[in-house]
């Protein structure tokens, strides 16, 4: 169980920016923070990690108060068990994969605790390599494995997969789901990718100007819960073609481009790069078996 109520005022020249984080999560839960760049999501994650100190508030993790401004309680980072993965890889270039993982061991931990992580993340064969000789996806797997070495109570992910291509991102999400099931973690994920949030998060909080403005299940927040569609998926608009009164949208769904024909609505027109959800209310859908080839 985690309860966090953390407030911090950031001063940048004459501008003041208030970050107010109110968050609860239970064991095994993955919650996502979603919002535009500069909304304060990363600062929220850094407050949870203890990399930034809140001006006010309190944080309780697994029944232990790790921060309370009023009582001047502030546990050092060595006493918190937090794992963190950053957008850019944070592997130490001077150490091999194995050494990177060993460096993350806490006092009293045994080197043997690393072996199962190598196996779960399929990085056993990379043990002796240095980060410069790893691909982007391999680095991310090692990043994730290293964040788990201390058997953390809290896993913080700051847009961890945003620099990967869609196929690799999808694979990394599988790994994350596997970890989530295996370690029963509390995970807080910062993500711009609604597809990722729908796939991974049980709850999502929308962040705007330093505050959480709303939260709930992904479908309730972003899925237009009132629509009675049977099929829905999210994607990014790659291309918009106009043909007579119709428009053809090419969407990137997962790692596949999909074409969708729509009649343009009167509202704001779609633009390339926007993230959309497609809901199909077709009465007679066509169904193909995945192992049968289309003509």
């Amino acid at each position, binding site marked *: 169980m985690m309860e966090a109520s953390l407030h911090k005022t950031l001063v940048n020249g004459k501008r003041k920016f208030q970050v107010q984080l109110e968050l609860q999560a239970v064991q095994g839960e993955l919650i996502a923070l979603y919002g535009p760049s500069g909304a304060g999501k990363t600062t929220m994650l850094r407050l949870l*990690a203890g990399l930034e100190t809140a001006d006010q508030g309190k944080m309780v993790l697994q029944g232990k108060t790790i921060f309370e401004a009023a009582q001047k309680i502030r546990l050092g980072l*060595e*006493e*918190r068990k937090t794992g963190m993965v950053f957008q850019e890889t*944070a592997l*130490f270039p*001077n150490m091999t994969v194995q050494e990177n993982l060993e460096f993350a061991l*806490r006092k009293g931990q045994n080197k043997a605790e690393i072996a199962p992580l190598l196996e779960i993340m399929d990085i056993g064969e990379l043990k002796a390599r240095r980060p410069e000789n790893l691909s982007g996806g391999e680095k991310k797997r090692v990043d994730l494995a*290293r964040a788990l070495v201390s058997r953390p109570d809290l896993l913080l992910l700051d847009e961890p997969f945003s620099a990967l291509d869609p196929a690799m991102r999808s694979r990394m999400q599988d790994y994350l789901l596997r970890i989530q099931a295996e370690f029963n973690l509390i995970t807080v994920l910062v993500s711009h990718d609604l597809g990722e949030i729908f796939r991974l998060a049980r709850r999502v909080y929308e962040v705007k100007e330093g505050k959480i403005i709303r939260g709930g299940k992904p479908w309730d927040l972003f899925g237009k819960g009132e629509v009675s569609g049977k099929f829905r998926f999210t994607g990014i608009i790659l291309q918009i073609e106009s043909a007579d009164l119709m428009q053809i949208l090419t969407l990137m769904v997962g790692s596949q481009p999909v074409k969708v024909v729509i009649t343009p609505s009167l509202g704001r027109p779609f633009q390339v790069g926007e993230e959309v959800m497609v809901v199909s209310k077709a009465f007679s859908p066509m169904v193909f078996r995945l192992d049968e080839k289309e003509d």
Partner: protein
Amino acid sequence: MEWNPIILTFELAAVTSAILFLLALPLARWLAFGKGWLRPVVETLVAMPLVLPPTVLGFYLLLLFSPQFAFGRFLVEQLHLRFLFTFPGLVIGSLIYSLPFMVQPLQAGFSKIAPNLLDAARVMGKSPLTIFLRVILPNSRPALLTGLVLTFAHTIGEFGVVLMIGGNIAGETRVGSIAIYDQVELGNYGQANHYALVLFGITFSILLLVYLINGGYLKRLLK
């Protein structure tokens, strides 16, 4: 040709580089990561030897160490430390004279470390000392090499400070640059040329080696 001035030159350069390396590590770390109004002041002081004529530095050290004044008298009478016209005095002068050549490359190297490496280590609960020794230092190797070699080479080129506080005592303070000056004064151009060629050859080789290593040429050559 007497080899003694050349040997003395390299002794001075080696001792200066070693001591300055240890002094500069914490200083450069603070300049790279520290905060506060004091930082630009210290940064300026560190850079001063780059622009000051070495004779200015030598002049003030002369006043500082001279037994004619209170501090110098205290050093000589109470602590029995003689720095004027001695090798240890030259070392102190060189430490100040070469300070920016060690501190600035180290500071630049430390500043270049990606901040998320440091954040990652902090989240792991590592102490600032552990982070410095295991993350910052090993990932600044080119900067460490550059600082050491620039200091070494720059100390070899020292002249003004030595002349002011060291003088020209054979076996004690007569380094290569002074020996050249001395021989020219005496009209022995041939001797002066010998010293000059040796210094040129050695410093050229040292600098070339550094550029080869830091530019990755050597690694490619050995592959």
